């Protein structure tokens, strides 16, 4: 793996890790944007270099597709959730599992991934070299989702899990990229809409309160 790719993946993994322990919704959204920006940065730079060197149509199309993918993950999705936060509330809360236990669990997750990476290093195909990072970020994002009561933070966790797949997503055929992006934005809009409606109906940002106020 190239050093720049490693640094980008490490940065996005650290952003995901910090997201697990973040307190306010605003902070979590910012970390999500950072994670997406870092993970897509290298791919974006590659296609930019290809565009500058080659200056041909295919490189331009590839650059536009990559930029749109990156921009959608790093700016549009965070902005949609941020808009939802503005319309509801910036909740400050702690994860359901306290920080000490949470740190132990997160450390165990990281160690397991490290162990698996070392064990399977020879078997993982070259095209999937980012797989350990993808898997780690995905697991941390799911952990974030299950340890939060605030629905917007859960939605941020979902987006972080989605962003984790970016290194693979960047290699998908051009023709499906617009569909995938539109759908991901659509799901975010639907999620934020439901949170806003629920906040209006129940006056709370905790999913457990929605259940109790039936």
């Amino acid at each position, binding site marked *: 793996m190239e050093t720049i790719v490693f640094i980008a993946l490490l940065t996005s993994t650290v952003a995901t890790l910090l997201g697990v322990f973040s307190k306010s919704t605003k902070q979590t959204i910012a970390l999500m944007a950072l994670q997406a920006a870092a993970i897509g940065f290298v791919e974006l730079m590659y296609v930019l270099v290809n565009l500058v060197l080659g200056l041909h149509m295919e490189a331009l199309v590839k650059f536009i597709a990559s930029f749109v993918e990156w921009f959608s993950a790093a700016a549009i999705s965070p902005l949609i959730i941020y808009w939802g936060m503005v319309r509801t509330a910036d909740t400050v809360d702690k994860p359901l599992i306290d920080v000490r236990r949470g740190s132990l669990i997160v450390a165990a997750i990281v160690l397991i991934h490290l162990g698996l990476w070392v064990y399977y290093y020879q*078997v993982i*195909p070259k*095209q*999937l070299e980012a797989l350990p990072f*993808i898997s780690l970020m*995905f697991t941390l994002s*799911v952990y974030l*989702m299950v340890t939060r009561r605030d*629905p917007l933070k*859960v*939605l941020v966790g*979902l987006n972080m*899990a*989605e962003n984790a*797949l970016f290194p*693979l*997503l960047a*290699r*998908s*055929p051009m023709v*499906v990229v617009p*569909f*995938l992006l539109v*759908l*991901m934005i*659509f*799901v975010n809009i*639907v*999620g934020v*809409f*439901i*949170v806003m*409606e*629920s906040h209006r*109906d*129940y006056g709370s940002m905790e*999913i457990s309160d*929605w*259940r109790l*106020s*039936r």
Partner: protein
Amino acid sequence: MYSLLPLLCLVAPTFVAVLCLFTLPFDFLESFYSRIEKESLILGTGLTLVIVMAMVPDALAGMVLETPLLALRFDLTNAAGLLGVAVIFFLTSIYNIKSETGGRLKPSMYNFFVLLFQVCMLGLLLSFDLFYIFVFVELTIGVSIVLVAHSRNRLASESSYKYLIITAISALFVLFAVLVVYVLTGNSNLLALEGGLGVIQENPQLVALLAACFIIGLGADIGLVPFHGWVPDVFPASTPAVNGFFCAEPIAFILALYKLVKPFHHALDSNLIMVMYLGVGAASILFGALMAFSQRDFMRMMAYTSIEGFGHMLLALSLFTPLGFVAGTVYIVNGALMKMGVLLCLGSVSIMYGTNDMDALGGLVRRMRKVALIYVVCVLSVAGVPPLSGFYSKWLLLSAVNEYLLPHGTMVTVLVLGAFVSVSMVSAVYLIRSFQWIFLGRDRDEQKIVSRVPWAMWLPPALVALLAVLIGLQPWLLLNLIGVS
């Protein structure tokens, strides 16, 4: 054979859906549209039914209709499923005329999302490309959540949010598997992948991992145990018509899952994938049957009955034999139709009496004779009582299991078949008991004045009940539509 009909099957409802949406920004069009909103939905679903039926004779003649550019394909492997989906949408859109009384969405938006939902179901069945299948899966999630949230029921917000999170995270498993397959093979066409998985095939652990991702991903969308968390909440939260439309979902998703997992099963030189399928299927059957037994809310009972049904469907397909495929498809299509019949009847009860609580109901047979008769036919069919269609689908399922297990020993076969029959008896007991609780006995609220059930609300389930009798007596009507690739 090159044909544009499979594409037209998706384009026609999309076109009507977009037309519905077109009226939204213009006030004068919206007021006009409010007079034809129900009819426009019937137009969209009816048109689709006509197109699907137009393709059936070619499929029966053994032809494969293909639109290669979009990897769409219509043949006897998906004909029954497509016809089932089209019939469910058409009949439920008739039911929708009287049952849909407004929700959070404007009528044009509601129709748009219903038709889009139908497009997703048809797309999942027709498409043979990994990416397009994922696109339809993700679109289904968004659209179905909007339809659940459409209800003004107090449960709708929480249920739809739960549904969103569980299914959206599961969709990422599907996306992951699709991307890995594409990155490693450079191919996303399932027909090509059935010929071999290339590099992936050299790594059995990766094959199993990818198959597991598909099972987890689509399993959560279907509502299989242990990914079923959203199902018991979504059924009571949705409107009766939306519940009817949702009956098409297992047809599309379970057949799509089978289509996705089959190349991996062939590539792996062991029964690991079959064991995964069996495990999830058996857990769903047991959990669904036991949980349904203890329910007092009839919608929750139906939610758990559905989970049990999904388990049976998966179990038949998990055999990966020709008879298993036929049995599975018959079970899926018949199960979805009968479930729709039951849900529409229960929806009528819910609309008329404003409750889903079976303890608060009773003696409705005197006030809702037609609904009671239709309900008992559909329920007996779901329970597998002869000579109804449900009996035939269960019989086929048992035959497929018997054919597969007999070479492994008579004792195992007898035990497994015995377990099947026992679970089926449990489901028969609670389904027949629900009829007794709701329709027989003393009328709990004799003073309550309830209007007659409108024709639009009893005719669609009546047609389903008629199908139950027809297919039960002449099973070839459905069997002829199913072929093995």
